[in-house]
């Protein structure tokens, strides 16, 4: 036994004498860190790195089978799913690993921001981190293209349409993004190059620089209210803290990182196993137009924002806001490199995170059910509720057929079924008078197209008489206030003629009849 140990030590010394890396790396791993940051809040960065390694490994495995050609990509994905043993599981790991990685990177970023850890001397660490976030999102977008299905095809179309809004060089940029005049083989090839060579290379190099700077400046200490960061004193204070309370990062602090990384990997495996891989959905044949393209989860919020921007604002917002937002994130540590670190003394920081998180959450939620999109088959698949057909005249029933036939349901709900683009019609007659409904139907307005060309007078008459029966739970129908006013005015005149002998306290003219 003793001899075996000696041989082992000799082999290690032979290797290390030639390599010279093992000792410095183990020394770096065991560098002293303030005991107050050995916290469960400090585990997200290492978890993101572990997920990156998982993505690289599963990505290499997928590349053994995947064919980055517009002709074959979709087929090779289905081959992976159905014909290659465990191909579905590797695809699922890669897909879920991607979602987990974005989530963990975002959480890591929020934690660093709220803890003020981006302040002196870690400004550049933050800036590189922002670049890493953008590269991670770039991996997610290009990865969505790798899944070369209908959503990928039309997603590329959305990308090209956004790029085409750049002034002057829009057309050239579209060609550069697509690799040619149309979405096709050249497009997939260049996104494959980005996804497999360019962005991963930058990502790994960036992570290297990021981790190097973490080692150089030490893991940031736990923020305390009132303990301000000053460039003149911070590093001395940090070193004093390390000397006073320091403990080796490995193993005293790193065991939490290791446990969390294992938990995350287990979660990815569980999701991959139980929920399976993402797609591919329909084949990327542009002539199959019965499709409602949608981006992956982490881009749903952008998809939602694009539905709500007014046309005139769209191009400026699309081109300016991302630039300002990214510049703001990059500049943050340069603008606020000193001062308070604790979140309890940084209300603007907490408020910003809250507002951004709630906004992204709401837009993402909206993106999951796209209330702004017409439901393309509602007119032929969702019947008018039976209760709206009871006790209706033949004309009104004819109107219900017009409502159905003219595809009104694609945008309007009845009894919570149908499109949500326009308002639900269950109580439309309590909001609009007959005249107003006629005008709205024929001329459109607001967000509604005009149907004057698509309806003849008898259809219009039937439709409006049906709509007039839709009064919710027998609410009062809408009334034309101006008519009532003119009638009241007449009554007032009549009353004033007879006011000489009328009793005091006569109902005032404005009172409801």
């Amino acid at each position, binding site marked *: 036994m003793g001899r075996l140990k000696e041989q082992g030590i000799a082999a290690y010394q032979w290797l290390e004498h030639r390599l010279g890396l093992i000792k410095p790396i183990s020394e770096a791993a065991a560098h002293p860190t303030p005991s107050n940051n050995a916290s469960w809040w400090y585990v997200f960065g290492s978890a993101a790195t572990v997920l990156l390694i998982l993505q690289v490994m599963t990505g290499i495995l997928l590349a053994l089978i995947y064919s980055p050609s517009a002709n074959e990509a979709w087929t090779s994905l289905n081959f992976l799913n159905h014909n290659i043993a465990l191909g579905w599981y590797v695809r699922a790991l890669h897909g879920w690993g991607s979602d987990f990685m974005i989530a963990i990177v975002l959480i890591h970023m929020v934690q660093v921001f709220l803890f003020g850890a981006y302040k002196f001397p870690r400004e550049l660490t933050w800036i590189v981190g922002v670049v890493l976030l953008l590269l991670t999102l770039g991996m997610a977008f290009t990865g969505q293209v790798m899944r070369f299905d209908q959503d990928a095809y039309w997603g590329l*179309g959305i990308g090209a349409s956004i790029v085409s809004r750049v002034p002057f060089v829009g057309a050239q940029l579209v060609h550069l993004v697509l690799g040619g*005049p149309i979405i096709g083989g050249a497009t997939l090839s260049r996104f494959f190059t980005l996804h497999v060579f360019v962005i991963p290379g930058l990502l790994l190099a960036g992570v290297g620089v990021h981790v190097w700077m973490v080692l150089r400046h030490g893991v940031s200490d736990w923020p305390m209210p009132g303990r301000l960061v000053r460039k003149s004193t911070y590093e001395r204070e940090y070193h004093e803290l390390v000397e006073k309370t320091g403990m080796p990062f490995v193993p005293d602090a790193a065991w939490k990182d290791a446990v969390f990384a294992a938990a995350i990997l287990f979660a990815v495996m569980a999701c991959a196993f139980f929920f399976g891989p993402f797609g591919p959905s329909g084949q990327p044949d542009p002539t199959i*137009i019965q499709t409602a393209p949608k981006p992956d989860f982490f881009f749903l919020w952008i998809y939602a924002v694009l539905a709500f921007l007014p046309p*005139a604002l769209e191009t400026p917002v699309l081109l300016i806001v991302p630039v300002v937002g990214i510049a703001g994130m990059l500049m943050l540590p340069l603008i606020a490199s000193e001062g308070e670190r604790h979140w309890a003394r940084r209300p603007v920081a907490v408020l910003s995170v809250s507002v951004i998180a709630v906004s992204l959450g709401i837009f993402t939620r909206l993106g999951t059910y796209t209330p702004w999109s017409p439901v393309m088959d509602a007119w032929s698949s969702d019947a008018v509720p039976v209760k709206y057909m009871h006790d209706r005249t033949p004309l009104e029933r004819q109107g219900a057929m017009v409502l159905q036939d003219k*595809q009104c349901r694609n945008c309007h709900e009845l009894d919570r079924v149908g499109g949500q683009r326009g308002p639900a019609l269950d109580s439309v007659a309590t909001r609009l008078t007959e005249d107003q409904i006629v005008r709205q139907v024929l001329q459109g*307005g607001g967000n509604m197209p*005009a149907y004057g*060309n698509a309806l003849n007078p008898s259809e219009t008459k039937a439709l409006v008489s049906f709509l007039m029966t839709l009064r919710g739970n027998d609410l009062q129908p809408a009334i034309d206030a101006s008519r009532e006013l003119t009638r009241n005015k007449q009554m007032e005149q009549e009353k004033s003629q007879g006011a000489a002998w009328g009793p005091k306290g006569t109902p005032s003219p404005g009172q409801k009849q």
Partner: protein
Amino acid sequence: MSEFLKYPGESSNDALSPEGKAQAHTRRVFLFKLAVGLNAVVGAVLAVPLIGYLLGPASRKKSSVGSWISIGEVNDFPVGQTRLAEFRSPVATFDDGETAKVPCWVRRVSEQTFQVFAINCAHLGCPVRWFSESKLFLCPCHGGAYYEDGSRASGPPERGLFEYKYKIAGNSLVIHAGDMPTLATQASCKDKPLIQIEPVAAETRSTTWEG
């Protein structure tokens, strides 16, 4: 010695002794600088064609691609109706597969007049669908809507549908197709100025062929 070699270029550094300045001006330092310059020149000569290759798709020549292509017999499209047609993109290359197929909407206004609309919504390029009963094109992505003549009806698009140039050659309907139609690349599409955004009711629409 090594502290002198740290700054071989900064010979004007007053802190350096004359020996140090001399050290920074040896023949080897000069040759090294010359070699760096040589590499800069070689690098530039190497880089120009590589960047040209990279930016190839964006070059001016290629940005007005396209040609005339038949999308079917004239009689396939009854007067007064709007139908889906498809063609293989004339600019497709060897490995485009199914993505080389392009759909478009053909509206036959009269015997000799057509309108050929791009499938791509003018908002963000999603495929619009024709609804003949309500006489509208609807986009599934963000709810853009267009009238039967392609003009904007409602929703986020800032203009009407893109139109292809067409001509009738013998018995077939021929359109000029090339670029995927976007706001910037409609070279192959009809020149149609951006419409003014205004209330929907104020727009005029052609009803000439309707009974």
